[in-house]
């Protein structure tokens, strides 16, 4: 059998006495959108940081297409095909929209010890960047300085940059955070259009978006996966309803 696109096995992260990630196993198959949900403090962000390489797990393995990546620094993981977007928008406000995406392309287009030719004159950088902008619906905003973008557009740019690195696995950390309803619907449409072409691990609070997009859902509670299955299975899962969905429905 082919290895999964992402295989997390026995992942453990402790902060003092707190088990933030508790012997976690997740397998993501190529082409699927796999959502990770859970109440606040469930360890979603800790998981993302360990996958991205900004936190070292205490135990366990992380494999991307069978390659062990747990010892690699973030930049090597990115070159290995792991593209992540940030929950707090991390774009470069001094640059234009196009330059932001070009920077993402540049990271994967050979070394950058080039001191002479203007980056904007390198078609090797501009053309893939334009393509990523078209995919995310930002093509007509290419020349706008990022400082002038609305919040929703910045979130779209965040995703465009991650796409431009040509990732084998997209790690989306709350892509709809802080968005208006209309904006998040637009992002849901965009992600739906990417479905099948990218493998996605989606961490998201917006339950409508998760149930609309995900092929499978893993539910985290106190660092443990208490359930994993299709949206229908998760909806009907007693422990999940008790731990998470139930309380949310009551609060609505």
């Amino acid at each position: 059998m082919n290895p999964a696109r992402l295989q997390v096995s026995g992942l453990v992260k402790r902060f003092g006495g707190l088990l933030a990630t508790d012997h976690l196993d997740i397998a993501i198959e190529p082409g699927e959108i796999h959502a990770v949900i859970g109440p606040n403090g469930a360890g979603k962000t800790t998981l993302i940081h360990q996958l991205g390489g900004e936190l070292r797990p205490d135990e366990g393995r992380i494999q991307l297409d069978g390659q062990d990546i747990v010892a690699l620094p973030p930049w090597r993981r990115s070159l290995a095909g792991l593209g992540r977007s940030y929950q707090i928008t991390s774009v470069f406000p001094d640059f234009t929209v196009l330059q932001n995406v070009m920077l993402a392309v540049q990271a994967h287009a050979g070394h950058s010890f080039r001191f002479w030719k203007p980056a904007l004159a390198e078609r090797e950088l501009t053309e893939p960047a334009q393509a990523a902008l078209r995919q995310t619906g930002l093509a007509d905003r290419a020349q706008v300085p990022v400082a002038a973008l609305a919040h929703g557009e910045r979130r779209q740019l965040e995703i465009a940059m991650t796409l431009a690195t040509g990732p084998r696995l997209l790690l989306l950390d709350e892509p709809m955070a802080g968005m208006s309803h209309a904006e998040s619907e637009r992002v849901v449409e965009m992600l739906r259009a990417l479905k099948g072409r990218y493998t996605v691990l989606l961490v998201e609070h917006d339950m409508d978006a998760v149930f609309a997009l995900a092929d499978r859902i893993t539910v985290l509670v106190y660092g443990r996966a208490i359930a994993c299955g299709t949206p229908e299975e998760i909806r009907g899962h007693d422990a999940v309803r008790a731990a998470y969905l139930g309380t949310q429905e009551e609060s609505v």
Partner: protein
Amino acid sequence: MASRVFAALVLVALAAVPLLAAALDQPFYVTLTTRILVFALAALGLNLVLGFGGLVSFGHAMYMGIGAYAVGILASHGVTSGWAHLAAALGVGALVALAVGAICLRTSGMAFIMITLAFAQMLYFLAVSLRDYGGDDGLPIQARSDFGLFTLDDPVVLYYTAFVLLLAVLFLFKRLIDARFGMVLRGCRTNERRMGALGFPTLRYKLVAYVISALVCVLAGVLLANLTRFVAPSYMAWTVSGELIVMTVLGGLGTLFGPVVGAAGLLLLEELLSSLKLGVPWLDQLLNQHWLGLIGLFIVLVVLVLKRGLYGVVVDRDRRRGGQA
């Protein structure tokens, strides 16, 4: 547009200084302006890491010192070849910058400031301990660098050498900033973590920027030793590192031409205030004794009112009008 015109005017004025000085029979002006060129060059070098890379190095005077001591030590052994001076200065400078950079760049923020300062202080006390080369008192330089085709003995030749070097570095930096390398450097200033997540091994790019920046300061040091015909540990005192930062901030952090404006502004003001004669004895005395305080006031005003520096505001105005800086 306005920023380009402004920069061009400053450069034309600088180019004309030796002619003016000769016409007015005031050779001192050439010395003063050479000093401005030398510090402009050093501030330009510092600005690559400080302004474009967001790395506050508080030890760049160390590299001026390395350049100056290379000239002084070689000259004291009778080596007057400018090429030998240059090779030694750049060679030692590159090695020191590689080693110091590789250590310092693993830290960031306040720790980076402190550790760069610490290295500069180490070199400062090393120079103090060099008794054979003047120790604390410094080392007079008997002969200036001789480049065969030309020698820096003539103040006007020295002046134009510094001027051409300044132009060359300005042009090279202009290319570098817009090229891939510059994009990575500027990206690291804004969000290094994101740069890593995008796939950039940021440390090696910052290290190369640090070495380039140091080498420009080494060049400035070689020129400074030729200008003063003297080298002393005080050339790499921490206050000099601080002055370089002030010049950069005064002119405009992260603007290509800002450090030149900042260096000129600060040194001219120093000169003006320390020798000002208004004809009112008590006022003159007050000014000439406390000019440093006035300069401090001026810097505070510029930072508070203009924020982006003397040249930075012109660049910003251009940007608001939709032009490219």
